């Protein structure tokens, strides 16, 4: 008998793959961008199932609420608004599909032939506190580096756009 987490796992799977198929094969870039939102939402659901409630919230906040909105804005600003039906053309479709299918096959075969050292499921309880302590103790260096990277990215983006404005 399957448990409740499994049911939700399959629901989220359906959400993710239904929308990501739309992302990949839609010829309307805006629809792709909106579908991506549901993919990201479904992945947040995965994180909840995997016991990462803080992570799930961060995923929605940063990914769905930030990056995806940026993508939608970008789509709207780059003139795709005038011809939505053909804004997202693809090329080498068959070739990439064959390649992608092969890749998936290889991955699945590898997955099937590896035995992962799986442990019994433990519920670790609230994660926020431990994640915070890990970030500021064990992973302090990557944390600082990534903060620096974010600042650099922000400054870089502003410089790039400003340059475009001026020319």
């Amino acid at each position, binding site marked *: 008998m399957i448990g409740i987490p499994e049911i939700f796992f399959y629901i989220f799977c359906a959400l993710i793959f239904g929308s990501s198929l739309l992302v990949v094969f839609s010829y309307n870039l805006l629809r792709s961008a909106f579908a991506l*939102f549901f993919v990201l939402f479904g992945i947040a659901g995965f994180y909840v199932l995997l016991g990462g409630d803080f992570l799930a919230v961060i995923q929605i906040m940063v990914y769905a609420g930030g990056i995806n909105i940026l993508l939608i804005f970008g789509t709207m600003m780059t003139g795709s608004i005038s011809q939505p039906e053909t804004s997202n053309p693809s090329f080498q479709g068959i070739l990439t599909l064959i390649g992608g299918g092969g890749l998936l096959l290889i991955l699945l075969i590898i997955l099937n032939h590896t035995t992962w050292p799986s442990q019994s499921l433990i519920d670790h309880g609230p994660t926020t506190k431990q994640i915070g302590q890990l970030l500021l103790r064990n992973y302090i260096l990557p944390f600082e580096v990534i903060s620096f990277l974010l600042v650099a990215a922000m400054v870089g983006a502003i410089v790039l756009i400003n340059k475009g404005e001026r020319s």
Partner: protein
Amino acid sequence: MEAFAVSLGVHIYLVKAIIMFIIAALSVTFMAVISGLTTWFERRIAGRMQSRIGPNRVGPQGLLQFVADAVKLFMKEDLIPKGADRLLFKMSPYLCMIGVFAPFVVLPWGMGIIAADLNVGVLYLISITALVVVGTLMAGWGSNNKWSLLGGMRSAAQIVSYEIPVAMGLLPSILFAGSLSMIGLMNAQGWAPWQWSAFQNPFTMIAFLIFFTGSLAEGNRVPFDLPEAESELVSGFNTEYSGFRFAVYFLAEWANLYVIGALTTAVFLGGGNLPEALQPYWYLSIFLFLLKTFFIMFVIIWLRWTLPRFRIDQLMDLSWKYLLPLSFIAFFGQAVYMLIDHQFPVIDMVTGPIMFLIFLLVLLKFFYRVAINFREQNKTVNTRA
């Protein structure tokens, strides 16, 4: 009840699903009623402020006006404009509604009365607004109307930029409570006003004001109602909506008003905390919580019918140039305050009452002003024939 149903031979998942469905249906119905009553509340207050009466025909004091309005809206023709992106157009109202109704899972109703006390309750509440953003963008894009598109873009830009001051405004309280759960935040405060997070020290006070301002912007309320600015963008992203879909938007808007009020109450105004002596009467805490929430809602409505609207660049300036740096100051200040507080716990006893006293003085000044207004007000003249 579960066991009883299982003993009858019903599958356990079916029972669970039915129970979940019933709870969800109850909360959605309750919310619909709350937001409906809020429409009545808002319209009556607006009426008082504008020397008119407001809805007073349907039911006692017009209380059932929202039912009549809903019935009227359901009967209207459901139009989808030509050239609209039908899928996005239809999906948008539901996304907005889910985005506004999802917070109710973690909103408390009194001392320890809550649907689900998530560990990341507050963060969840902030992040779920992403649904509203995407919903408005969808509506703006899908309507095939340029005014709607401008409204949708404005709305998304506004909500995304005000999410940061709102989150930063919550941080001092979170620091103080050491918890992200709503119950944890509420329990960190006492029943008395000087124990509330808002009056705890100058930094939480600043954070409270920042949070309140930011929430107004996130909820698209005046003076930040640019996405719906009817004198500029006709009606913003919902221009092309009619009938049931329009009703859904309005349900969402007023439910959002309640969410803002309840969140402010729970995080900053002591929630439904009661003094020791009154704690056995738990229902009083529900009453107290609703009272505070409705007071905050009243303030928001009051502002809406008083203030003019910002312009989009002024709005962005306010967020990025003033609220954000201020919220960093508040966050840092609160951290320093807590360090000092750790050494000398006495300071906690002092700052709260002082801040509350300052607030009382401001209130006194306000009432003094109101009294002057009343005194100067001549009696109404009668020029009728």
